[in-house]
């Protein structure tokens, strides 16, 4: 079961992108967003280092 705040975030993001999210996929999308949030937490735990400027694609 997805986190309640994820459901609220989906409502906001779909409005911005003009995405009419079908009800049938709302829970699946929320669970996938929770998974992405866990990966973001891992990425954000990485200490910042000196390196190529912000790493954006050249």
């Amino acid at each position, binding site marked *: 079961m997805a986190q309640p705040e994820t459901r609220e975030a989906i409502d906001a993001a779909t409005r911005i992108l003009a995405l009419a999210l079908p009800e*049938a996929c709302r829970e699946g999308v929320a669970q996938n967003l929770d*998974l992405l949030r866990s*990966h973001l937490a891992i990425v954000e735990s990485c200490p910042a280092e000196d390196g190529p400027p912000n790493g954006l694609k050249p």
Partner: protein
Amino acid sequence: MSRMSSVVIAENVGQGRISTEEVVRRTLADIRNRDPHFTAFTRLFEDEAVAAARVVDARVAAGGTVGPLAGVPFAVKDLFDVAGYPTTAGALMRVDAPAAVRDAEVVRRLKAAGAILIGTLNMDEYAYGFATVNAHFGTTRNPHDVTRLAGGSSGGSAAAVAAGMVPLTLGSDTNGSIRVPASLCGVWGLRPGDGAIPLDGVFPFVEALDTIGPFTRTLGDLRSAYEVLAGVKLSSGGTPRVARLDGFFAKNASAEAVAAIDAVMGHIGSDAVVDLPQAEAARSAAFLITAAQGGALHLDTLRTRAMDYDPAVRDRLLAGALLPSAAYVKAWEVRAQWRVKVARAFEDYDILLAPATPTVAPRIDEGTILIDGKPASARANLGIHCQALSLAGVPVVAAPYSGGVLPIGVQCVTAPGREGMLFDWLERLEAEGVFTARETA
């Protein structure tokens, strides 16, 4: 005849000992007879293949020059453009898409080398998965045990080669989609370094990570295919410095995956270990970049045809489309740091070893593997040890370990420009029996 290697077929065709038309007709008959057990193929180009075979035979009969892959039957994952046919990318909604006007550049190169295109191969829809469980075109089954997954997303490409139906196929590898099915099906698979093989005419998934490469049953075939696809002649290297990757790459590895790397290291008499810091973050960064770029690529179609997608793929793409840009930017920062770390490791070593999959092929009716001690989706996690290496953009050969009951592969990673050294080293290990593609019944 269908189990002959590309090198042997090309040699015999070139010298007029066998006819290409005979090779192609037998190959097509074999596929029609056996593929219903595996669901590897999605289309056969029977008339075009026979016509192309006759052209090669006529050239041989006239004493003309034929290419290094003369008469070799090959097939491609259903995301390579084939002139005159829609490129489905494994999606039912694309079955009626406009036909491609020309072949993908790599298809053109293989044909120019004398190879004969036989058909297209099954995949996860839009290449988003590690299972080749396709809601529309069916599940590709592992030729070594049809109750098990072939892996994905290039599962049809791996299964067709493992079953001996064709000696050469092409797949794509964004996060491990060549290495994972090669491992589970016990064949050779190559993810090239960034930019080494052109992507023109290949349906995209994640621009930052997409690559394409071959599957074969012998390393000699992998070398000849790579040289044609990349347009290079690999030079011989010296004696490589080899180490195994530890840390994140040892975590979640099953006993079979660990045993395969132990066997290689024992065989070469080395205990060198490299622990690349931030590997887990690199894997997560690849996950985030994939979600964001994949979601953005499909945004317009998701707005209008969301319910026409494979549900599992649709929900992942939608979630990616909704990912905040700050997460995407942070993932690119990790990518830049990670590439520096990997490059530094190659100052001390030439080849790094890691599991290609955390486990042998899972059963289709289970669909899960253990990650951090808990059941997790095989579709999303079979490439856990591949994704960080995709982000590094380095060449990787998934080599089939000869031991064990079911197949499992080892990722043999090198630095761009050292592919020749890697192939020389692997040829020695293949000759000494450490790596061997598995025969199927």
